[in-house]
Each structure stands twice: as structure tokens, then as C-alpha cells.
């Protein structure tokens, strides 16, 4: 790889992978919980929660990054509190990039997981109940295994989408080499630099290759989810 990429470019690639991985790992459990909540029968406030979940899907990512900056800046109340009590600092840090990517891809994850949960035959739950399985038992032994291929497909798609996140990251955590400069930010930087077109082209080609690889895997997983065993 070092023959093709410079040290800085490799750094951007590895950072992108790390940011995306953490983003998905953090968001997925919350997305699963939200999807479970929304796939159950109606409850008051369901429409509101459904709406809030989908906000990042329609909000410009730059606006989302700005909101994060306001909320989690070290001088903002929430940001200051997190720093004081947990030593968590998001601004200008790669963890902030992961948080931004997590929030931007959250609606996809909820929608995807909800679809796979709702495609499970309700009759199987009833069958499990009559056979002595309580709620948690049914979740672990029926719901999760049957939704798993769908959840995997969702996770891979979210991972690939996180690799491409630009607006929210650059607004929230800036463009710091080695810390927050992920692949798209590196492409942007190269284009801003005189004579950087070749580098931008290389990184764009790399991004396309990554996208193709992960979307192929995701599509394979989704197909397996549809044609259940």
C-alpha cells in the first residue's frame, strides 16, 4: 500500500476506517433499541420519536456539525460537563468525527433494522410464547437470530456511509491531519493545494474502491437476509 499511498494518505485511510468502525459500533445498539421501540405497537409520542430519529437524514450535515459544535464545545454546558466528569472531549478530536458519523448514519440504521424486525413473522413469537418462552428469551432466541443478517447488512452499509461523511465532520471537529482528516477531508485538502489533483484522484479512486467493496458485502448480506435459511 505504501507504494501507492503516501504516509499521510495511509494515515487518512486508517483514520477513516477507525472513525467509521467506532461510529457504527457506538450507534448500532442505540439504533437496535430505537428500532425495537418503533416496531412495537403504538404508544403515545411514537410519531415524535420517529420524526426526531429521521432529522439527521434531511438536515444538511454542515448544520448537524454546527449543532454538535454548539452543544459539545468545551465551553458549552454539556461539553464542559462531559469533559469534567468523563474526560470526554469531542471537538477537534477523532472521537468527535466518529460521533458525527454515528449521528448522521443513525436514521439509516434505525430504518434498516426496523425493516428486518418487522419482516419477522409475528406468528413465530406466538409459537415461542406457547412453548414457554418469555419476552427476553424470545428476543435472544427468535428476534435477534432472525434479524441478524439484516442487522449485519445495515451495519456494513452504515460503515461505508460513514467513510464518506464530510460536512458534519469538518464543521464539528475541523480538518486536523492525523486526528480528524479522514479520506473525504484529505481529498478536499488536496484539491485546495496547488498541484494536488493527482493525490485527489488517487484518494477518490481509493474511496470508490472501498465503497464498492463494502456495498458488495452489504448487498450479499442483505440478500442472505431476504432468503433466510
Amino acid at each position, binding site marked *: 500500500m505504501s507504494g501507492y499511498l503516501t504516509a499521510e494518505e495511509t494515515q487518512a485511510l486508517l483514520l477513516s476506517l477507525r472513525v467509521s468502525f467506532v461510529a457504527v459500533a457506538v450507534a448500532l445498539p442505540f439504533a437496535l433499541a430505537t428500532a425495537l421501540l418503533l416496531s412495537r405497537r403504538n404508544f403515545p409520542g411514537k410519531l415524535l420519536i420517529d420524526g426526531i430519529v429521521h432529522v439527521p437524514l434531511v438536515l444538511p450535515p454542515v448544520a448537524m456539525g454546527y449543532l454538535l459544535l454548539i452543544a459539545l464545545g468545551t465551553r458549552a454546558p454539556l461539553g464542559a460537563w462531559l469533559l469534567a466528569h468523563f474526560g470526554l472531549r469531542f471537538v477537534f478530536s477523532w472521537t468527535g468525527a466518529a460521533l458525527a458519523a454515528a449521528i448522521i448514519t443513525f436514521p439509516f440504521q434505525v430504518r434498516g433494522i426496523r425493516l428486518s424486525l418487522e419482516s419477522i413473522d409475528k406468528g413465530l413469537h406466538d*409459537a415461542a410464547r406457547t412453548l414457554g*418462552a418469555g419476552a427476553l428469551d424470545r428476543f435472544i432466541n427468535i428476534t435477534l437470530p432472525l434479524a441478524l443478517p439484516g442487522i449485519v447488512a445495515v451495519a456494513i452499509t452504515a460503515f461505508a456511509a460513514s467513510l464518506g461523511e464530510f460536512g458534519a465532520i469538518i464543521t464539528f471537529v475541523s480538518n486536523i491531519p492525523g486526528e480528524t482528516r479522514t479520506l473525504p477531508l484529505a481529498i478536499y485538502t488536496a484539491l485546495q493545494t496547488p498541484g494536488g489533483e493527482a493525490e485527489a484522484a488517487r484518494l477518490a479512486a481509493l474511496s470508490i474502491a472501498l465503497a464498492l467493496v463494502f456495498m458488495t458485502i452489504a448487498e450479499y448480506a442483505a440478500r442472505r437476509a431476504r432468503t433466510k*435459511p
Partner: protein
Amino acid sequence: MIEISLRHRLGAFTLDAEFRAGPGITALFGPSGAGKTSIVNAIAGLVHPCEGRIVVDGCVLLDTENGIDIPAHQRRIACVFQDARLFPHMNVKANLLFGWRRAQTRASEGEITRIITMLGLEHLLARKPARLSGGEKSRVGLGRALLSSPTLLLLDEPLAALDDARKSEILPYLERLRDEVPMLYVSHSVDEVLRLSNDVVLLRDGHVTGTGSVFQFASGEIGDAATGGVIDARVTAHRDDGLSELSFDGGMLIVSRVNRTIGSALRVRIRAEDVMLAREEPRAISANNVLPAEILDVRETSAAQADIILRCGAAHFTARITRASLARLGLAPGQKVFAIVKSVTIDPQI
């Protein structure tokens, strides 16, 4: 012993049903929309009726008056569904043992083997449900329900999704289960009810319109599905002339050689059209089966026909004759007659 009393409203539909069921198979018989599935779901605990009381073997599962409503997974009532509902991600063995693992009193290893053998599932244990035929799925569904050691087994039209060939594949297995556990068998098929059940609860528009034995159901004393009669008999002899003798409470039937051991129980069905009546004992006659009987009831079912309900010992069956014959013979309830049974149906066994 099962006591059911339910009142439930669902839109325009009102369920108001009360009945008791004993051991063996009790059929819940009625047309679509009679409330059969609602009753089954309420007993299983999958729906919660507005008012009701459900007692199985002295155990109160539901008593809305006293605020008792045991959750479905603690009721020990297993269901066999029309669409089998096998867990697609588990193989047959894991499906079979799903309820067993969660049972309060687990069947022994030997018992598991016995049920697997009884249902003919030995060679299917490693398969996923997607690779089973419709009939095999039904059998696995039955085995899974049985192995959860239920106090009551609910069967909600378990054969309705199968074609005739598959139905006749499953029916013998259901017959074998008759002595295993009390069952409520939902059906709208007269044939299945006659073949399997001991008792019948008739349902229409959410109400119980009659209850009685399958013998009363077959003879038309309850319901309007009179087909003739059902007799539970026992093989007493295989004769040299290619015939077998069956005895029942009320007499003896001579039938073509049956392929069962002497002493085994079997159910014989008689079609009302195959029964002739005589006021005096016929002597020179080709029919082998002439049974003395008493007329219980006479029903003129159409302009030309009448059903004569007969009792022969404990057995009840119906003769379908023309009203012209009825008038000529002057038949009336209470009379002694001779029933000439031209042919009987004996269901094949495995």
C-alpha cells in the same frame, strides 16, 4: 377436565362461548368466522378476552373477575398451528426441543425418542424447516408441541393448509396422539371431526350451538352435519373366509379383512345412505351386517328424504331413506327395527 367461559367483542363480532371438555380429542366445529380461532387464542393466552374464565385440570389460567391472567408462556398450553410456524433458523431437532427445554417437567430422553419415532422424524432431525415438505412440517409442529409437556394441546386447523394426500399422511399420527394429552381440535371439516374426535362443540357466530359426543354428531342428534354414524369397535377375529369380525357395544360387524391385530381398537364410519331398514328381521339376505336397533328420532330433511336416527347399544347412527319408505313402513320413535348396513369405511392406519 377443561372449563371454558369467554366473552369478547371484536368490532361487530361478539364471542360468547361456554363449554367443558374432557379427555381425548374435543372438536371445535363451525364455519369460518364462528370464533374458533378466537377461542383457541384466548385459551393459549395470545389474546385477552374482556371477560372469561379458563380452567385446565383444576388450574385457573384466566379469571377476569378475580384478576387472574397467567401469561401465555407460563400456561403450559401448546399450540399446533395451520402454518406450522417452525423456527426457520433452527433445525428440526432444535425446533422439537424448543418447548422441551423450557418445560417445567421435562420428558425423559426415552420419551423424546418415542415421540420422534411415533411421528416418523428420525431421519429429519438435522434439516432446516425450509427443506421439509408440508406434511413433515406439520409433524414437526406436532412433536414440538407434545414435547413441551403441555396439559392441553390446541390444534388450530392443523391440516387446512395441506392437500388431501398430505392430510391422509398426518391423520393417522393425530389418531395416535388421542391418548397422549387432552386436545382441542379446531376444524370445519366434518370428515376430520368424525375421524378424530371424541366430543364435539358446535360453534356459530361466536356462540356454542350444541355439545355432545362424536357419535351424536355423526348421527345428526346434534348439529346438522348428519353423515351416518361413527362406531368405536375392537377387532375380535380374523376369519378364514377373508373377513374380520369387529365387536362393539351393540353387536358385531363383519367387514373385509382389516390389517390389524386382534384386540386393537378402530373407528368404523357408516354412511347414512348405506343403511337400510326393515321392520322384521330379514332372513335370506346378502348383506352381512344386520343390527337390531331402536329408532330415536325421525327427521324429514327434504321433500323426498328422511333421516332415521337409530340406537344400537351405545352406538348411534342414521339411516337415510325416502319419505315414501318412511310412510310405507310407518316408522316412529321408540320402534324396534333392523338396520342393514351395506358397507362401512375403516380409515387406513400406518
